[in-house]
């Protein structure tokens, strides 16, 4: 485990560098938007990665509710945190891009709104984890995660019913893209996924480690005699 990490880290860094190179220098310039569009190689992969992690959180929460396996809970926390970070990236790169292209930072467009809702939901998930007292945190959090996952389809399927300013999804939607751009997209996405997975893995290890430490402490506490009655 300890040896694997540096190797993976180096590989990921290399992949990220390569993706950066492809995005900045290899991919063709957009006819309408010029070079600003290159932010797409960060915006979109972050969006996809975020979905991957939120979905992981959902699955892990379900597993936890059924099996009550603490590892599933550790996966759920880690996934929610990493997912929230990528969601933040989407929410930051989106307006950065919107400003030159649409002329405004933000609009209450359904797609943007739903991304904000997603962010809020997972932020409240993490806040609940902070604030709940005692040993029931994982149960409550898992229940909340299920609610979050249920909210998403409602939010996202309604995209098809709206005319939004935001481009339609390429996969399953009406959008289309140049194949050479698609290639770079895929590379960036792979790089982001690797990076996300690496961070997630670290966070997961940390969580497991924390729990082990707590376990040891509580075992110690059990052995020592109480100081008073």
């Amino acid at each position, binding site marked *: 485990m300890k040896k694997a990490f540096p190797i993976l880290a180096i590989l990921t860094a290399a992949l990220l560098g390569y993706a950066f190179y492809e995005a900045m220098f290899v991919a063709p310039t957009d006819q309408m938007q010029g070079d600003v569009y290159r932010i797409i190689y960060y915006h979109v992969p972050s969006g996809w990665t975020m979905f991957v992690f939120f979905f992981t959180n959902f699955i892990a929460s379900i597993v936890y509710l059924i099996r009550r396996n603490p590892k599933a809970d550790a996966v759920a926390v880690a996934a929610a945190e990493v997912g929230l970070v990528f969601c933040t990236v989407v929410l930051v790169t989106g307006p950065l891009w919107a400003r030159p292209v649409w002329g405004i930072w933000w609009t209450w467009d359904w797609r943007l709104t739903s991304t904000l809702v997603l962010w809020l939901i997972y932020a*409240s998930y993490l*806040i*609940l984890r902070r604030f*709940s*007292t005692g040993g029931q945190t994982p149960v409550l959090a898992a229940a909340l995660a299920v*609610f979050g996952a249920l*909210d998403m389809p409602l939010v996202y399927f309604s995209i098809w*019913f709206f005319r939004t300013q935001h481009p339609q999804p390429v996969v399953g939607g009406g959008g289309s893209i140049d194949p050479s751009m698609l290639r770079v997209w895929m590379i960036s996405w792979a790089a982001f996924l690797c990076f996300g997975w690496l961070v997630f893995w670290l966070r997961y290890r940390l969580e497991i480690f924390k729990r082990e430490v707590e376990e040891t402490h509580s075992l110690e506490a059990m052995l020592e005699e109480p100081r008073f009655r």
Partner: protein
Amino acid sequence: MSSFWAITSATLAKDLRLEWRSKDAINSMLFFALLVVVIFSFSFDPTAEESRHIAGGLVWVAFLFAAVVALNQTWAREMRNAVLDAYRVSPAPANPLFLAKAFGNFIFVSIIQALMTPLFTVFYNLRPLGPAWQLIPVAILGSWALVVNGTFFAAMSLHTRSREIMLPILLFPFSIPALVAMVQATNTILTGQDSAKFWIVLLLTYDVVFTVACLLLFETVLDAE
């Protein structure tokens, strides 16, 4: 199954009796809702044409906040003297308790709505240009959406620190889709520009999905210690 409904109705009857004795929730909701109506009518000219455009938002924000005030009280009553423990050791299943609480809150919110709607209509000089009867399903589905999730999250926030503020923190993000649907449906009906059908269907879906989810998960949340 019949005992399921017997317990639900017994719990609901008990809650209504308690509320009738103290009038806690109703009073604070009513007070708050009245203030909201008055504030808004003072703060801008309610006879203006555009009032119709924002009325949906006003009404539902007022109800949402009023509901939060009431929902915060729901479970507090069960925590005093640890009465909830008495429910938990009994063979009664968890869901009747949840349904009774949700129905109870639904009744409160409906009462507030019944009282406030005439006020709003008068103050804002509202006259729906679309089919007015559609407001009734919107009101029912919308209130239920607020209440079913609110009851669930209020139960959740029992186990947290700073309980009162936890409820809106959990409830608001999850109810945004429903809220948007309610507001849009109301506005569409009031302005009569479009059909509210899509929004009503969305609300209905939301209600069904979340009621089922609450019923499936409530026992877990109740028994978490």
